[in-house]
């Protein structure tokens, strides 16, 4: 495994991420304009969704429903076990515990992309339609976390928010919409459509992801100074919980019939924490929660951990389980 680890650490994606961290730490004025961030996000989500959709057409829906159900269940389960840990282990306020649990049950698309990149680099195959798992796993944990938080606030506690708004935010946020939409477009187009757009959506993909990770390094690095606000418990939580969820995810993936590569990807999804979709939905539904806690641990602790150590770890674990 140490070889795979090194290969991952020396990949352009991870090194550019590290460069971004350095830029933020030495306070270089280097920063990406916000529209460039948005453009890269849109490109990456559309490309991965489209590719997954084409793969789904080729594979047939029959092969995806069981893993998809497993992913939904896993997403809903993670906040249920992490909430008590945060609440009583970390002595966090109920609403903060619920918010953080929602973030860790939901997923990070960029971590998923980095994992597929890793698999491509080491030449391991995986179900291309696994991107559907990414899509279905964003929302369940958010809904469970919000319910936990609302219950903790009591019947009249907290700011009232119409349920419809929360569900819409959890289901139709920018990233889910793009991912699911491109998936459907890809499924409708099939391989004939793919041939037309492949030189744009597939060939340069790894390079674009590397550039994006440079930006993610800056974004994460600029939040590193918030680390002292989250305290030692959340730092440990941000590393240990992903490991547990990741190992669990690979197990579930194997049980649901995914291939070695696919199982590893489900592990990565379980391990990853959302820092886009979940913050938006949780901010709307549980404004009483302190966003710095969940965002900083997801973005500045768990994301770098998964990107560097988590991905090869879950891959090694999958290799161990599958043989």
């Amino acid at each position: 495994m140490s070889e795979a680890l090194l290969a991952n650490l020396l990949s352009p994606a991870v090194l550019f991420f590290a460069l971004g961290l350095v830029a933020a730490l030495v306070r270089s004025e280097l920063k990406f304009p916000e529209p460039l961030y948005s453009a890269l996000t849109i490109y990456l989500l559309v490309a991965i969704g489209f590719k997954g959709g084409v793969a789904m057409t080729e594979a047939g829906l029959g092969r995806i429903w069981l893993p998809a159900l497993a992913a939904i269940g896993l997403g809903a389960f993670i906040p249920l076990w992490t909430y008590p840990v945060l609440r009583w282990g970390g002595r966090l306020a109920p609403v903060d515990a619920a918010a953080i649990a929602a973030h860790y049950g939901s997923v990070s698309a960029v971590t998923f992309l980095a994992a597929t990149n890793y698999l491509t680099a080491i030449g391991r195959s995986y179900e291309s339609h696994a991107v559907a798992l990414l899509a279905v796993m964003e929302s369940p944990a958010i809904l469970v976390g919000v319910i936990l938080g609302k219950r903790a606030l009591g019947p009249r506690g907290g700011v009232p928010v119409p349920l419809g708004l929360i569900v819409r935010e959890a289901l139709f946020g920018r990233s889910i919409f793009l991912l699911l939409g491109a998936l459907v477009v890809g499924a409708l187009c099939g391989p004939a459509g793919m041939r037309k757009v492949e030189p744009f959506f597939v060939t340069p993909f790894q390079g674009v992801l590397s550039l994006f990770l440079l930006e993610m390094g800056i974004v994460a690095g600029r939040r590193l100074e918030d680390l002292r606000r989250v305290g030692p418990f959340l730092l440990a939580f941000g590393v240990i919980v992903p490991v547990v969820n990741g190992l669990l995810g690979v197990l579930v993936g194997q049980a649901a019939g995914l291939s070695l590569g696919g199982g590893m990807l489900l592990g990565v999804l379980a391990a990853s924490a959302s820092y886009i979709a979940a913050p938006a939905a949780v901010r709307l539904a549980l404004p009483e929660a302190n966003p710095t806690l969940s965002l900083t641990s997801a973005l500045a602790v768990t994301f770098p951990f998964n990107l560097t150590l988590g991905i090869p770890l879950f891959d090694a674990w999958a290799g161990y389980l599958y043989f």
Partner: protein
Amino acid sequence: MNLHPMKLVTIVCEAYAAEPVLRLLGEVGAAGHTAFPVEGSGARGRRLADIPEYANTQIEVICRPEVAAVLLERLAGELFPRYGMVAYESDVRVLRPGKF
């Protein structure tokens, strides 16, 4: 040149708050608004505009004094407890008072 006094209400809020603020503007009867993305710092620390979801929005509304009063009151009651936000009022003079 006939200038008429109006109030300018300026709201700086986190991006997630922009939609509820705009909805509130409709409810209190403001006739228009102007908005643009900004970055800033305040009680909730630095808000960098590096990701759209984490940026701030500045919203400016010209309105009659009575609308401004209701707007500020409802902002304070309904949105201040929920979102990172600053709001202030100042005096301006406009040419076509019927427009506001």
